[in-house]
């Protein structure tokens, strides 16, 4: 997961259980690397509970470490999935 020039992290297009292990590794790496955890969600085309709870876990780490966490520009798919699963507050997390 690469950072943009502005330091944002672009979420992959697939946040489902099939890719959960790879996504988890990527998130663990960015968590270890330090820096803000500002994710861009505009590329997300598929998401389910397995993928979303990894974002919850990343936020848990960010809160514990007092690091900024946010999901910006969520795609409709991502937004709907978060709302459906009662995780809409992930979108409200600010720096």
């Amino acid at each position, binding site marked *: 997961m690469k950072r943009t020039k502005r330091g944002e992290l672009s979420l992959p297009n697939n946040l489902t259980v099939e890719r959960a292990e790879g996504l988890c590794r990527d998130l663990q790496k960015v968590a270890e690397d330090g820096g803000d955890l500002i994710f861009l969600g505009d590329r997300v085309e598929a998401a389910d509970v*397995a993928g979303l709870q990894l974002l919850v876990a990343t936020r848990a780490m960010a809160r514990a470490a007092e690091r900024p966490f946010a999901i910006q520009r969520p795609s409709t798919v991502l*937004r709907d999935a978060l709302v459906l699963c009662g995780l809409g507050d992930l979108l*409200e997390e600010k720096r």
Partner: protein
Amino acid sequence: MAGDPYRDVFIAEARDLTAALEQDLVDLEGKSGDGELISRIFRAAHTMKSSAAMFGFPEIASLTHAMESVLDRVRDHVLAIDAAVVNTLLDALDCLRQMVNEATEGTSSDHSEALAPLCERLLQVAAGATFGPAAVSPPAGVEPKVTTYQIHLALNDDVFFQGTSPTLLLDELATLGHVIEVRCDTSRVPEICEIDPLKLYLSWDITLTSTAARTAVEEVFLFCRNDGDIHIAELTDGPPASPCPCTGSPAAKDGSAIPVAAVATGVQEGPASTAPRLVVAPVAGRALAAAPRPVAPLAPATPPAAISPPVVATPHPAAAPPAAATPLTGALAEGAEATGLEAVAKLPADDLEILHDFYGESAESLAAVEEKILALEADPTDLETIHALFRTFHSMKGSAGFLQLEVLGKLAHETENMLDRARNGALLFDDNSIALLLTSIDLARGLNDNIGAFLEKGAIPADATLRHLRVGDHVAMIRRFLAGARPVVEPPKPIGKILVERGAVAPADVGEAVTEQLAGSPNTLGTILVDKGKVTPEKVGEALAEQRAQAVQPAVQKTISAIRVDTERLDAMMNSVGEIVIAQSHALKLATEMEGEHAERLQTALYEVERLSRNLQDVVMGVRMMPIGPTFKQFARFVRDSSRELGKEVNFVVTGEETELDKTVIEKIGDPLKHLIRNSLDHGLETPEERLAAGKSAKGTLELKAAHEGGSVIIEVIDDGHGIRRDKVLAKAIAKGLVAADQEVSDEQIRRLIFQPGFSTAEQVSALSGRGVGMDVVKRNVDELRGSVDIESEEGKGSVLRIRLPLTLAIIEGMVVSVSGQPYIVPVLAIVESIRPRPQDIQHVAGQGEVLFFRNEYLPLYRLYEWLGHEPRVTQPEKGIVLVVEDRAGRRALLADDLLGQQQVVIKNLEDNFTKLPGISGATILAEGNVALILDLLGLYDYRQAAAGGVVA
């Protein structure tokens, strides 16, 4: 934005959708239980809403959203359909149409004043309120019970391995009603560095209001009821209302279309019991379901590639093969747990034998069905193959259930559902659904391989876990596909029903055969019945042919696609093709005057060109043809509103809506038809009281019917009212001085009287008719279309108003006549007869000029060379030809020199280059290459009469 092609496409679609919506909304009143109709209306509103928001029409998006809110409640059976609901939706549609029209014309006005109360009204209707004096309270007991369910969902942490998708469960719950609240407990989620990505840590408390029964809610968790802690409690009653963006929500202001976007959630981390209760804005469950799906999207239009993602063979640690093959004992339990085989590992020895059999049979049947699916791809209507596939998955589901192979059972169950839809005609297989079937086969084969490996080697394949994970997604895909799939066909009747209807078998025999089939018989229903001697193979063959005929027709329709073409381009094409035909005729004529071998070959080649150019002309003519159905259907609203205004009950029936005629004719026939319908409603059909007194049903019938007859189209307006009252027509005609009191009047003359200008028998002038300006206008308009109108009526039984129209206005059947050596075209439709009269048939009547005695009638005789200003060549009628013609001005005789022949001529408009000439409707080019003017006989008559100081008819 003018000229934006996408915007133009939206506008064109919006016009089509509003037209379709009007018809459907009118139908809705009489078909309140028609789920497909309601869904279609909902989809139309939803499509408009989404497209309008996308193309920058926020007001249209707001209004359609409010309409959607009402329709959502109707679809959920929360709101009963009554006159008030339909009236409100029709009012909204009127406003919508106005906005679409303005978009079409590129004008715009501020609708906010009208829009806000309209949206508010829709919202209140959605909430169950009714409006106005016409409001009808829903009958008691119609409103279904609304139940509030509190659902606690805490699944085991390994559910991903069971093929269960919590996202799908939440999504399915949302489709059952309105999700009021979703509380997600995130307290068990570890930090990212410690998490196992394939374990579930979340749990939920969901509040749902729904009209669905508890069993329907329980059914959502059918396949995971043993996979965790699931509680369903029933709380209180009371449906929430959908928010309307028109009343100030952010969605209305920015035109965003999906209500979920306005929902704010704010669940805090912590145990569910202590987390602050989050009350989210009410979410329309259906609207949420209609929104883009959270998991890999799959709609019927999704390309097959999206349906079958490539398998990524990433072995999960839990699925890694054991270092050494392990005997088939409890020691396998660890590997088995990760692949859904834990129950298998505990099977007793006897059942393991059954498992062996199951594995072998499944491998065989899966190999066979793949072939069948490929056959299905070639013929998606092949019911025999669909039945065979259904039986395969049905058997697999049954055995899997017995052997506790839950994941395989789930896969077989969902695939069976899809096949069940297909065999009932509710689904026609296409590329996407075939791809889903093939994926089901792949996954079933993979799961079966797991069993095989488990049985034979005691080892689990490396990708076994991944297969299980994919089953969950695949099942979700099938469910989504089925939720979004529309029946593209009227379900073909089951073969048993057809046989019973044909009297070939008794219903009890079919029942027995079905029972046998469900018990596992590999034979088709027809074969079982034949084997039992209940029916002959021939009868089954006939029934199958009928069934196939039902299925094939819509399949063909489905593949029809269309593009929009400017009619000016079509006209230009028609013109060019017409000239090709003429040029070819000219060339052929020249070739026939040549001699020699080359001339013969040239003629042969030109005959071929003639054939091809005529074909081309027919094709271009066909392009201009449109079905008259949409024109007919637009009258449904008119009939509904008018009949209410008149206090009459009317059943409006449309037949022959597929009849095609030229677009120009269709555009011009609307007004005359409206007059005729209005006339039938006002003067033809009786009030319910009058009908009951006459021994008829209170509800009258008004039928609009179209059919081809020869080269014409016949349109009929048929009513079962009291018919034309001859005595009333006659009395009115005498009062108006149109006939003498003692004159004998034939039925034909009575009919003609009705089309006289200003003639009306209505005792009262109503808002609809009675001023006598209807029927003569109809006749004039139909005459202009080169058609004719007639009435048949039987007193007390009803009337038939019949319009005969040419198929097209671009070509006419013309009689080429010679007048002083010049060719002219007379429309054949106007000619009653062509004769060479005897000298004694021509007489002079003082003050009236020449008359022709023709079939016991004296007709005025006019000399065309005089009318057209030519030097005469033939002055004696007995040496020339007399055309007896008839139109609105009545019958008359016209003297020409000679008849040159009858031919189809392409009309060329003169008015583009010349001033309009009275009496000339256009020109055409004859085969010789010379130009002939086409006579407008009525215009010519009117012109000459006016010039002579006579009265113009």
